[in-house]
């Protein structure tokens, strides 16, 4: 087991395309880190650089105490699970799982029990003599995991390993991967575009956008205190509602003005242009103390909750609210939405967070 460090790592393709830009990251020994971001954000490239499948254009990658920039994948003592599983089609499950050990020249007497143990852990013992094409997607996924586990590597690298599975299986495998990682305690870097995977599995989430690091924090912190507007919009489902507002300091607090609403909150914020963010789950229908007048456009019941898609009465901006399943308004109903002041997020014109502790909330509405 080892820690993995990236120091100022960049990747440039064809001298022009900057895929990863000066990423600094340390994955502690035994930690489970999930790298998440939209398509093309550089997350897979980053992982592939750690694996040695891509060269590093600038910066340094270390596994343990060794700088591995010039170390071949063969010599990095890592294991990787691919999105496509990349199982060797002409080999049985047993051969797939033992391939690395056989290449390493391990004696057969040692390989066999290790394969059996890993297979047992993943509940694929009865599949050991099957070919990959005889297996379902979920079973192939387990074999791919088994192939990684059996080698007892320093680091696990996983490149969107669950994205080819159906929703139910994905949820199941999510917990299973977590359980295995916890049992083995192997440092793991896991790449996904699915923020639910990131939120549920990670010790820490690494959020990338356009090749740049946006935030590295535990999931709840990324959710509660997003570093910037991108993270705020990316983490959470449905996405955070954003409103461009002009804030004016007054004697009784601050006035928030936008084409859609105008209200005064008992908070201390310097005057200026901001983006106000409120999560759908923090919006409550509240005629008495609400701030935003809306009209219901679509009601989407998802069982546990209802998603309301609304338009602001003025300005016709889109707003999404997540409300309890008992609350089920009709389309075209007029609703006034409110929120707690400590649930609101503010970002400056560059998208950076205006920290909550600078808000100096004097009284919540």
């Amino acid at each position: 087991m080892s820690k993995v460090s990236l120091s100022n790592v960049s990747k440039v393709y064809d001298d022009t395309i900057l895929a990863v830009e000066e990423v600094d990251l340390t994955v502690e020994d035994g930690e489970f880190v999930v790298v998440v971001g939209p398509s093309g954000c550089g997350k897979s490239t980053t992982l592939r650089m750690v694996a040695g499948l891509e060269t590093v254009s600038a910066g340094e990658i270390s596994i343990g105490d060794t700088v591995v920039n010039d170390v071949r994948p063969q010599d990095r003592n890592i294991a990787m699970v691919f999105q496509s599983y990349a199982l060797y089609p002409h080999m049985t499950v047993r051969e797939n799982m033992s391939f690395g050990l056989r290449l390493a020249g391990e004696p057969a007497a040692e390989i066999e029990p290790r394969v059996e143990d890993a297979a047992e852990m993943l509940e694929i013992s009865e599949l050991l003599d099957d070919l990959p094409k005889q297996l379902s997607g979920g079973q192939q996924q387990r074999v791919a995991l088994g192939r990684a586990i059996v080698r007892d590597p320093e680091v696990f690298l996983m490149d969107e390993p669950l994205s080819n599975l159906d929703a139910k299986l994905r949820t199941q495998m999510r917990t299973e991967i977590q359980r295995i990682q916890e049992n083995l305690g192997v440092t793991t870097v896991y790449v996904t575009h699915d923020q639910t995977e990131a939120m549920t599995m990670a010790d820490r989430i690494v959020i990338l956008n356009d090749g740049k690091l946006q935030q590295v924090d535990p999931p709840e912190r990324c959710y509660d205190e997003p570093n910037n507007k991108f993270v705020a919009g990316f983490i959470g489902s449905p996405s955070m509602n954003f409103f461009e507002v002009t804030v004016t300091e007054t004697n009784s607090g601050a006035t928030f003005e936008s084409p859609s609403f105008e209200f005064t909150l008992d908070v201390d914020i310097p005057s200026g242009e901001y983006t106000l963010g409120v999560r759908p789950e923090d919006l409550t229908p509240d005629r008495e103390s609400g701030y935003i007048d809306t009209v219901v456009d679509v009601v989407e019941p998802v069982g546990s909750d209802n998603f309301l898609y609304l338009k602001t009465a003025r300005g016709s901006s889109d707003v999404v609210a997540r409300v309890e399943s008992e609350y089920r308004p009709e389309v075209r109903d007029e609703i006034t939405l409110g929120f707690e002041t400590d649930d609101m997020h503010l970002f400056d014109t560059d998208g950076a967070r205006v920290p909550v502790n600078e808000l100096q909330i004097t009284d919540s509405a």
Partner: protein
Amino acid sequence: MSLAEEYSTTDGESRLSQSVTHLKRNRRAYLLIAPAAVFLLAVVGYPILETFRLSLYRSPADSTIETFVGLQHYAEIVNSDIFYRLLWQTGRWVLAGVAGKTLLGLLIAVHLKGDIKGRKFFRTAFLIPWGIPYAISAVVFRWIEHPQFGYLNAVLLKLGVIEQGIGILGNPDIAWLGVVVADIWIGTPFMAIIFLAGLQSIPQDLYEAAAIDGAERWHQFRYITLPQLKSVILMATLLSTIWTFVSFDVIWTMTGGGPISTTATLVIHIYQVGLQNGNLGLGAAYSVIGFLFLLLFAIVYLRVYTRGGDEL
């Protein structure tokens, strides 16, 4: 009646009615393939049958009278020493040719797949030999190997490998090699292109997974490339074997089967016996034997190759 029930009945009468139903249901499909089937029968089936019929007759080319002789030609062939010499010469010709084309084709394909400079140029350049008429390539090689004016001798002399020019095509011991080289040169591009197509269909992540598993380049070739390319290699070598077996123009242009018939293969001999000597019946009998050899080879080859799985 469900489809399963329909096909599960076994008694003769309903089988017949099944066939009728099947024909009725697929009438349009059969009609559509009928012209091609008739055409194939006419240009492939008929000559095969006619060759077989001809082999049972004494049929001089300069006469219209055919005399039925039964299997006499076959008896004559298997009792002659020439036949066994021809088999040996054909065998080594095919084996050396196909092996050379396959290995060289694989080598070229693997390198053309890699990220080399001028890859597009080389891909096109390597196809050129295949686009030149075989007879012309053969003439070129005859000149290359010419004892006095050939490039090969010039280069070997310059390098000091030999002290005086050698006539490869005139030497009964090595003439066949001189012809095989030309055949390999002509046939390699086809193999390379087929192998390249096969290589490109192997997912890159298999190599990446193997590299992470610790596989060196040779391991990757041995445990990923070769098994993944197996079916392509099978088909390409099968086709190449058939083409090399029946190849005529290269040998005929370069040596005419000489010297002292050491480069003659079954096909060259068929031409000499049947068309040059005018003994159509005997030539046909040789053809039938050649045909049966190829058929048997193809069947055994496919059986052996498709049996069982792969192992490390």
